């Protein structure tokens, strides 16, 4: 019969229309911004810097190694290394970023900076309401705007953050152990040196100086 297909189609539309009053599945939209969908855990948009503790300047995990700056495909990260060093998240003395800017108008949210970071310092945020009336300054996120606490990281990506914390704790233990061993070795060496110095002071000093000198020359040659 001519028109059968049309009637069948219209019946389908009617079923969907009336169904939307009783069936939640047929009405999938929400009224943003009053209503919001639950956030999916893996969601990512722009990077942020994680810090431990209360003071963001002291606790930044970033050591300004500039790997993310090099690997970033659209080159939206700008880092300046500090001149001095401070202990990092695992307790090793490291540089820190004197300047760390991300231009989110260039960033394409690819997550490559997160993947290449060996220090778990840069992670993906979920903050998407970033509109600004200043199109140059407003979208250039500086260090202070990028720094977010580890608690915040736990809140937005709980599973991932727990894994990172476990790995960091392990590294911290290792570093402590290494420092303890180094300190013990240094103390032993100092004791041995003192003992040796007490036994025959002039010859040992000359020998050390000599050794250092020849070693330096060898290095020069190798270069």
């Amino acid at each position: 019969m001519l028109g059968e297909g049309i009637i069948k189609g219209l019946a389908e539309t009617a079923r969907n229309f009336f169904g939307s009053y009783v069936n939640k599945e047929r009405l999938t939209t929400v009224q943003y911004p009053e209503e919001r969908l639950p956030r999916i855990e893996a969601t990512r948009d722009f990077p942020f810097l994680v810090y431990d503790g209360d003071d963001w300047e002291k606790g930044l995990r970033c050591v300004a190694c500039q790997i993310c700056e090099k690997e970033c495909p659209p080159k939206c990260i700008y880092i300046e290394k500090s001149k001095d060093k401070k202990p990092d998240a695992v307790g090793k003395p490291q540089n820190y970023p004197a300047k760390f800017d991300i231009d989110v108008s260039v960033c394409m949210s690819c997550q490559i900076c997160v993947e290449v970071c060996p220090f778990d310092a840069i992670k993906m945020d979920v903050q998407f309401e970033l509109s600004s009336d200043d199109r140059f300054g407003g979208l250039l996120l500086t260090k202070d705007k990028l720094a977010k606490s580890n608690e915040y990281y736990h809140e937005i990506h709980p599973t991932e953050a727990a894994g990172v914390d476990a790995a960091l704790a392990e590294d911290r233990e290792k570093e402590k152990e290494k420092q303890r061993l180094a300190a013990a070795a240094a103390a032993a060496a100092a004791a041995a040196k003192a003992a040796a110095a007490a036994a025959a002071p002039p010859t040992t000093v000359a020998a050390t100086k000599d050794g250092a000198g020849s070693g330096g020359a060898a290095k020069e040659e190798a270069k």
Partner: protein
Amino acid sequence: MSVLTEASVDTVSMPADDHLQGDLLEISMGPVHPSTHGVFRMNLLLDGERVVKLKPVFGYLHRNHEKIAEHETYLGSMPYTDRLDYICSITNNWAYALAVEKLAGIPVPERAEYLRVITGELTRLQNHAGLIGFLLQDMGASGTPLMYAFREREKILDLFEALTGARMMCNYMRFGGCRCDLPAGWMEQAKKVVDEFPRFLDEFESLLRTNEILMERTQGTGIVTREQAINAGLSGPMARASGVNYDLRKVDKYGIYDRFSFRVPLGEHGDVYDRFMMRLLEMRESLEILKQAMRDIPSGPHKDPNTKIRNFRPKAGEAYGRIEAPKGELGFYLISDGGPNPYRYRVRPPSLINLTLLEQMCIGHNVSDIVIILGSIDIVLGEVDR
């Protein structure tokens, strides 16, 4: 001076009744909004309503993809491939990863292959669901079919977001596997989506498949013959709608596609209706593949542990990796000189090649038919212009 003064193909002969014939009208037409098929223009020469000549104008979305890739690291190009055919980013990733794996000889673990098939077929589902919605929107079925299609597509995009973190720019594949493994609960959710999908297809088919207006409008419109399709190098659903039995999943058996049993639907007439049906049928076959892959997926590593993501330098050589993307054969051709970035990087986009027959398909039809012919080709200008 008109760009249409030089004839590129044979024009149809004019009607004999000269006294009725007015001047030919030259107009510029095209989807010019990025949220439609893309930014594209056609210069048309019309005799009344009929198309006498058509010249496509490309390049509005040219972003220098290939040249940028030659200055990026191999990994750095991966997120850019998302932006080629921005509707199916995962299959773009896959084709690029396949080319690099061939170039560097990287093995892919079993689980990663299954993850690739699952996400790739989900991509095909959401691309075809979106396309039939767009196509019907182009035909004037304003709103309803597109909204139904997008309602289903949204469920798959939610799966992508839970897995990769992004709905459209997934950046999921890595050389030698996938970026991350499935999160907890993902597989159950995906199984639910796959199980419920046939209900949507049934609903969609009863909505419009037998609609007399739609059949009248699409059957016999924009015909591509089998010979034309082969000569122009068409691929994907476009070629299969014309009866060319060419599916890289069967021909190349890349990845692990030889393990799944599925059929390749073929059209007879090569018109817009066949291309529309081709998408509906392919979705059912994709669901079959998904069911088998979800049943058989083994445990194990999700990427090759020996492949480092930094300082990646494949040895000098060349490779061509191709897959059956939802739109057709998507290939990446790479030449390496041993450095950290490719010496030459070339994309073979299915949309561009499928678009080459546009003029032959449109000549003799009305202006309103051009819209649906263009819609049935399934182009994404991100891929055409690159």
